[in-house]
């Protein structure tokens, strides 16, 4: 009986205040939904990648040997405990001619038979009856190669290659004929490979500009017949169940990796023995041939050059004997550029997901508290009646807690269900611009823990707010509750003490000021609401500034060259001269500077992991120190002061310096890197003279003398920086001409780099927009709710004014002036909060090789400020009919 009365009352109170019920429901839905939705973005993206990697049997470990591998070693690898499948393949980086450009291309052999028989069962899975067929690419168009000289190219490359066209291989790190059996590759199809999820870069290489621009798969027969396997790809069955990149995955893989690493030495020895015996038998054959020739010659009576031949053979023998063992490395996915870039992006999302939802919850709590307080206040009489009838406090509180539970519970379920689907989907779609990971389909997975945490927080916050609101009323005796609440007493404010000022204020301003401080809680909440809103807007605009600034500031003001020409090692001086002459004549080039460039690994001094984690840097050594300034502006970011650069100078760029806390006078340590990017040697220590402004990439500029002192070698200066004028036409004209010059290895223009960056950054921008729009919408709801409550609390006052004969306009002014002042204050506060928050988000979202702009443009402040004010004005306009509708007769009839 009592139970049903309770239910009846609950239902009636929900129906009676549907608007407020919905307000609580919506705000909790948004708060919980955003929390859960944003939190699921990272995991969903990782799940999508994992599904793809598993579906296409992507390698977990990759064993690389500098002198190749043979079937014997591959066989040994397959015996390692925990290794499920092994696939050996050949890979080589070459430079191809694509149109007028030269692009670094990674050529990999594919098991053409297995590939042809494989079948794409979905966008993310390729099935094959051959278990050892790994890294299964999905055929997008055309067919798989059958014969030598046929290839399939990436369907995902920014620079598309048509099926039916032919790609010419022009150079490689060694003679192309030792690598490939043909230099003309006919394109017969396009594929999408799980090994290259990131389209911004397919990997780094020592060739050309340093980035792989295209990958192709060819038959084994396209490689030179004696070109050995370069890699063995391994899968670890026990890691399959775990999500790639997770700690469970890593620990499963690491166990096997440890075992593989244990046999690295013996694999290397094996390979050495093989190579030696091969060489020996070749040599023996040569010796035999030589001896036969000698015998023939002797019989013919000529014995003159026998000793020379013998000497040659002896030297060859010595070479065979002194053959060094190859370096064997075992890599995991964390050393694969695409996979790690993707994972880093998802982790950045995770971090952003910790900032924004917190703000959302704060706001939701604010709204729940004000709304519940209002409901309880309105119900004073009813609470009093219940108390007078003898209901216990618990029973009455349960009533409101039930209401709050119902509203917030429904909101939480609704918000979580909708936003865990919508938000990750939007984010995944945004990222699909630069990643080719097939996105998950609806329904997206929802992590139970995350959903429970979100729902629990949302419901908990609302219940706590309700308790706070109810407790105060319950503490009063029934008689007091049955009487109308004494109106909040007027009070003098501090400002009135400042007599001269107070006297000068007009009457209505006095009222406004006093009202401002009358309801302190409401003041604070409105202030917080508006400040939050404008802060979020500023973050949006600021992020946009920071992101796009890097392009405008980097290319032009800092990087003054727009063309980079690299010459083959050991290019003749004549070739360099003609390249420079060509730049001048075809491209009207200015600011021509010859430099030596090198990719190295850098770290700071000290033993903390922050200092010992190495970062890839570009080292630039100008041939003539004084000329560097015409290619690169070295300056201090804050003061703008130019940095002097001489023969002994060492200048590092800002992001790199901040990674290791390096300032002028500190030391940086540079390491050479081996084929797979591991640091070698003890490293050289350089004393840093200055830190220079820079946004993209990490650079160390070293003076010629300082370089020689540190490395003990004379640099080759095989790179030329130049500023070609005349736009893209002049660039392609110059490029064509340069390629005809012997010794010119690659030509690249920053135009391409800039467009790649724009492409990548537009994604981040998109995510930012999503965040800000939703946050703005949330702030809008909050403002509306607060203003609504503000107005409804003052209905009596408004009615009194109307009776006195205040016009509508005067009433608006009277009520809104204080809201406008709070809005202005809140907006200003939001600018402070926003610039702080923006800094936080920027540093969280930044990648290691990019430094976003650190300033928010004045115009952005203006926009954010104006937009927040526009929100406020819009809400006030929306509320105007409510003010006008206040019924004088009704409002003044009785006290409650």
């Amino acid at each position, binding site marked *: 009986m009592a139970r049903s009365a309770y239910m009846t009352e609950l239902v009636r109170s929900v129906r009676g205040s549907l608007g407020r019920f919905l307000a609580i429901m919506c705000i909790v839905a948004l708060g919980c939904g955003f929390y859960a939705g944003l939190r699921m973005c990272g995991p969903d993206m990782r799940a999508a990648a994992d599904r793809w990697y598993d579906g296409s049997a992507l390698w977990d470990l990759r064993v690389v040997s500098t002198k190749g591998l043979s079937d014997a070693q591959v066989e040994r690898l397959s015996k390692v405990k925990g290794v499920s499948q092994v696939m050996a393949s050949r890979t080589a980086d070459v430079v191809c001619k694509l149109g007028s450009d030269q692009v670094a291309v990674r050529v990999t052999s594919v098991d053409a038979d297995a590939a042809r028989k494989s079948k794409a069962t979905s966008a993310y899975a390729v099935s094959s009856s051959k278990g050892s067929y790994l890294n299964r690419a999905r055929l997008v168009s055309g067919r798989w190669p059958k014969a030598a000289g046929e290839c399939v190219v990436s369907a995902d490359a920014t620079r598309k290659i048509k099926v039916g066209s032919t790609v010419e291989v022009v150079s490689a790190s060694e003679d192309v004929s030792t690598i490939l059996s043909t230099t003309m590759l006919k394109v017969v199809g396009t594929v999408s490979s799980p090994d290259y999820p990131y389209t911004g870069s397919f990997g780094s290489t020592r060739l050309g500009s340093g980035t792989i621009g295209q990958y192709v798969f060819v038959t084994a027969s396209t490689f030179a017949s004696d070109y050995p396997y370069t890699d063995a790809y391994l899968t670890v069955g026990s890691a399959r169940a775990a999500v790639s990149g997770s700690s469970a995955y890593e620990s499963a893989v690491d166990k096997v990796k440890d075992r593989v690493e244990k046999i690295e030495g013996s694999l290397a020895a094996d390979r050495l023995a093989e190579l030696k015996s091969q060489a020996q038998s070749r040599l023996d054959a040569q010796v035999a041939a030589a001896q036969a020739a000698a015998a023939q010659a002797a019989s013919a009576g000529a014995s003159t050059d026998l000793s020379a031949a013998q000497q040659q053979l002896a030297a060859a023998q010595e070479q065979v004997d002194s053959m060094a063992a190859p370096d064997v490395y075992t890599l995991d996915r964390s050393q694969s550029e695409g996979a790690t870039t993707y994972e880093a992006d998802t982790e950045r999302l995770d971090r952003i997901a910790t900032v924004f939802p917190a703000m959302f919850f704060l706001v939701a709590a604010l709204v729940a508290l004000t709304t519940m307080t209002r409901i309880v206040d309105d119900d004073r009489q009813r609470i009093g009646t219940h108390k007078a009838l003898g209901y216990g406090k618990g029973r009455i509180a349960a009533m409101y807690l039930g209401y709050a539970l119902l509203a917030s519970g429904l909101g939480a379920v609704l918000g979580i269900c909708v936003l865990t689907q919508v938000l990750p989907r939007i984010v995944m779609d945004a990222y699909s611009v630069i990643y080719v990971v097939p996105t998950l389909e609806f329904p997206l997975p929802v992590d139970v823990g995350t959903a429970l945490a979100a729902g629990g927080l949302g419901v908990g916050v609302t219940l706590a707010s309700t308790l706070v609101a109810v407790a105060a009323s319950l503490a009063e005796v029934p008689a007091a509750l049955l009487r109308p609440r004494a109106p909040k007493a007027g009070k003098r404010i501090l400002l009135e003490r400042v007599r001269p000022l107070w006297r000068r204020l007009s009457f209505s301003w006095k009222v406004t000021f*006093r009202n401002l401080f009358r309801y302190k809680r409401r003041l604070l909440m409105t202030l917080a609401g508006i400040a939050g809103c404008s802060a979020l807007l500023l973050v949006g605009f600021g992020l946009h500034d920071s992101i796009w600034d890097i392009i405008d500031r980097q290319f032009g003001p800092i990087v003054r060259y727009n063309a980079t020409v690299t010459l083959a090692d050991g290019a003749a001086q004549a070739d360099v001269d003609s390249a420079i002459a060509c730049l001048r004549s075809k491209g009207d080039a200015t600011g021509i500077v010859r430099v030596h460039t090198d990719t190295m690994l850098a770290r700071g001094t000290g033993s903390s992991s922050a200092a010992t984690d190495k970062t890839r840097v570009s080292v630039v050594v100008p041939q003539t120190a004084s000329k560097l300034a015409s290619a690169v502006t070295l300056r201090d970011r804050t003061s703008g002061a130019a940095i002097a650069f001489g023969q002994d100078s060492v200048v590092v760029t800002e992001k790199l310096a901040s990674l290791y806390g390096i300032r002028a006078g500190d030391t940086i340590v540079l390491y050479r890197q081996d084929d797979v990017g591991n640091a070698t040697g003890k490293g050289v220590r350089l004393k840093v003279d200055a830190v220079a402004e820079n946004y993209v990439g990490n650079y160390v500029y070293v003076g010629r003398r300082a370089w020689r002192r540190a490395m003990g070698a004379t640099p080759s200066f095989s790179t030329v920086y130049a500023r070609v004028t005349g736009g893209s036409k002049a660039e392609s004209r110059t490029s064509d001409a340069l390629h005809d010059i012997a010794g010119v290895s690659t030509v690249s223009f920053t135009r391409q780099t800039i467009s790649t960056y724009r492409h990548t950054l537009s994604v981040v921008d998109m995510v930012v927009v999503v965040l800000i729009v939703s946050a703005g919408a949330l702030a809008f709801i909050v403002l509306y709710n607060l203003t609504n409550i503000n107005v409804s609390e003052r209905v009596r006052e408004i009615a009194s004014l109307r009776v006195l004969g205040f016009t509508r306009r005067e009433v608006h002014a009277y009520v809104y002036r204080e809201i406008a002042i709070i809005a202005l204050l809140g907006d200003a506060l939001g600018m402070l909060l926003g610039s702080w928050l923006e800094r936080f988000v920027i540093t969280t979202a930044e990648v290691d090789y990019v430094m976003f702009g650190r300033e928010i443009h004045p115009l952005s402040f203006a926009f954010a400020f104006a937009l927040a004010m526009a929100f406020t004005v819009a809400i006030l306009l929306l509320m105007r009919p409510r003010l006008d509708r206040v019924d004088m007769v009704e409002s003044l009839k009785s006290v409650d």
Partner: protein
Amino acid sequence: MSFVEFEDVSKVYHTGEVEVRALDGMSFSIKKGELAVIVGPSGAGKTTVLNLLGGMDSCTSGTIRLDGQLVSGMGERELTQYRRHDIGFVFQFYNLVQNLTALENVELASQICRDPLPAADVLAQVGLADRLDNFPAQLSGGEQQRVAIARALAKNPKLLLCDEPTGALDYRTGKQILSLLQDSCKAGGRTVVIVTHNLAFTQMADRVIHVREGRAASIETNDHPSDASQVEW
């Protein structure tokens, strides 16, 4: 022509399906400078009369005039101006702005009309000369009602309308308020209309309008109204 004229005024409220005839052919008039009392049982339509006369609501049919002005035909904007310049209202619950001092509450009204009386003077008139800087919460009910009267008077209105002005006050305080109202009529020459269900108030009135079921049942004039301090109930 009389100062206040009600001619066959009807007011119908529509609440959902139900139609309530609050006034049904109400007619009466009041002369300038009179103190009129409108009495009747609960629900008779007294407050409705006052609301229509005060320009807070418009009638369904009939004509209402004040000082020759046709009130019943006014639009929302004109009604606002009418309330602003011609009417002073006193309610049962004082409806003061809590965040303003006594003086400021009076100034709130006087600042918007054409030739207001000095706020401090009016407050002195109602006997609150030394409470100017008190907030409503610091005043007793009677004192608050006096502030409300001062607020209405400071506008220097043509007509002072009071709805149950003593309803929330004790006997003694109520009497003080009545005296004050009678005084502002007699000494100030202002026309005052008081709505009440208390028949005792009729003794002090120049004119008594008995209202029953939305009509003026009878109208009496009182040539020798007694002093408000003599009224007993």
